[in-house]
């Protein structure tokens, strides 16, 4: 790890001042940033510790729930209102990382976590995300863990988060503060597709700090599940995962939300699949149709063609579990 200065922010304003200094990075749980600093993939000259700020509260209201930026993954997953009104979020969090890491990792840190693409993490290889315009060794490399949706000719790195898949399905909003004031960013706009600039990953302006995430309460949110398929039973990144939320009225699907993990270059919500389910009665046929639509634009590489069928089955299984629970 290169040399750093450590700043402990005493207020959000103090954090924004410190974060405006050259090569500064905000630091919360450290499970992603410290790891990447050790590998010298990320090299901030200064880390601004935001964990002592009053940003860890979890505030339920009738409209939804506001998750403080530094609330830990463990605290959010265990919160009774999250479990009752947003089960998909609790399940997604509990399917990610390990208990130790969930005790450290935070909401905002999870939003900001970087890809686990092996080429991104290895300084001996070329990576457009790590070193802009240097090339991508993943394209012709070992692609079992890579994305099949949302990739470009410059990057096919999969987004690693489980929490973000649930938040994408739930239609969350990210609240940020920066040098020019506060604003809300819709979840779908927060993570950027790699396109021609894989190094640009977030819709944040320089110096902006995530302060909370708001999750709206809906009937579909309360009837939701997360299904994750991976190479071992626990403590592994997704090969494919699905967050599914269904509101069913009079035997028909009134509202469907579907998002995928492990297969997209960002948390992958599928409006096509959602539209196909609206107004249908919940049935295996309808679920299969939705799954086909969600993967219609998949582009596979040498080692990850299996993910198309796996993702479809994961979607069908998640939808069936939600429908069974109705």
């Amino acid at each position: 790890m290169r040399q750093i200065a450590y700043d402990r922010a005493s207020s959000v304003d103090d954090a924004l001042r410190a974060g405006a200094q050259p090569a500064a990075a905000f630091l919360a749980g450290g499970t992603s940033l410290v790891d990447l600093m050790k590998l010298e993939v990320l090299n901030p000259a200064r880390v601004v510790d935001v964990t002592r700020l009053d940003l860890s509260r979890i505030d339920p209201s009738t409209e939804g729930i506001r998750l403080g930026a530094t609330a830990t993954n463990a605290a959010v997953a265990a919160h009774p209102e999250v479990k009752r009104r947003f089960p998909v979020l609790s399940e997604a969090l509990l399917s990610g990382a390990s208990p130790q890491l969930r005790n450290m990792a935070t909401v905002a840190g999870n939003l900001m976590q970087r890809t686990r693409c092996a080429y991104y993490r290895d300084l001996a290889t070329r990576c457009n995300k790590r070193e802009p315009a240097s090339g991508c060794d993943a394209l012709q490399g070992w692609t079992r863990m890579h994305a099949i949706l949302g990739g470009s000719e410059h990057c096919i790195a999969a987004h690693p988060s489980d929490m973000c898949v649930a938040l994408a399905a739930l239609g969350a909003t990210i609240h940020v503060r920066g040098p020019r004031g506060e604003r809300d960013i819709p979840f779908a706009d927060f993570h950027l597709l790699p396109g021609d600039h894989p190094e640009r990953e977030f819709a944040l302006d320089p110096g902006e700090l995530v302060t909370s995430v708001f999750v709206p309460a809906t009937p579909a949110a309360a009837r939701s599940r997360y299904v994750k398929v991976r190479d071992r039973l626990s403590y592994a990144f997704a090969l494919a995962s699905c967050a599914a939320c269904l509101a069913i009225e009079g035997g028909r699907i009134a509202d469907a939300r579907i998002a995928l993990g492990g297969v997209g270059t960002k948390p992958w919500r599928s409006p096509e699949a959602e539209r196909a389910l609206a107004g249908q009665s919940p049935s295996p046929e309808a679920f299969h149709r939705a799954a086909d639509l969600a993967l219609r634009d998949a582009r596979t590489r040498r080692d990850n063609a299996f993910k198309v069928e796996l993702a479809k089955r994961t979607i069908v299984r998640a939808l069936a579990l939600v429908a069974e629970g109705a």
Partner: protein
Amino acid sequence: MPDHERGDGLTRRELLVSGAATVALACAGAPARREGAPPQKPGEPMDIVLVVNDERRALRIDPRSTLLDVLRENLGLTGTKKGCDMGQCGACTVLLDGMRIDSCLALAAQYDGRSITTIEGLAKGDALHPVQEAFLQEDAFQCGYCTPGQILSCIGFLREGGGASDAEIREGMSGNLCRCGAYPNIVAAVRGVRGRI
């Protein structure tokens, strides 16, 4: 040099530990960084206090030090193991205010003033902690390298109110890898000590 060959009655480990303790004492009087003080420069040492196994330890550290390295290198508490050093094996598990974390991904600077429990802090004199007893009783290790992390993780799991079924124990202990594959006996140890701490 083999431990038994030293003429001064100190083992190599004791010598290393006492050396580290001297360093820790020497910087105990250093002033803490003040609020509103000019920003620290990269690499500038900083002073922190950790309460480790109920003992207050004042330390001067490089700001990039991990909690794991501070425990092992500055405090000589080598019971906490470095396995993967990237949050994937759990050998470095310690308790932070009673909650299990991976100390390899924790910057020590962030934990200034906080309470850390390591494997060295569990026994009361010659009386082992019940989880240590359970691991002995069930033969829940082979080489032993992952064992301190497994034991601390087990204490954290039980404090979190972890479930009683073998499946819940396996999931709850999934952050600790054992290269020797002692998992069946580890699960038995956790099952056996449940409700006894």
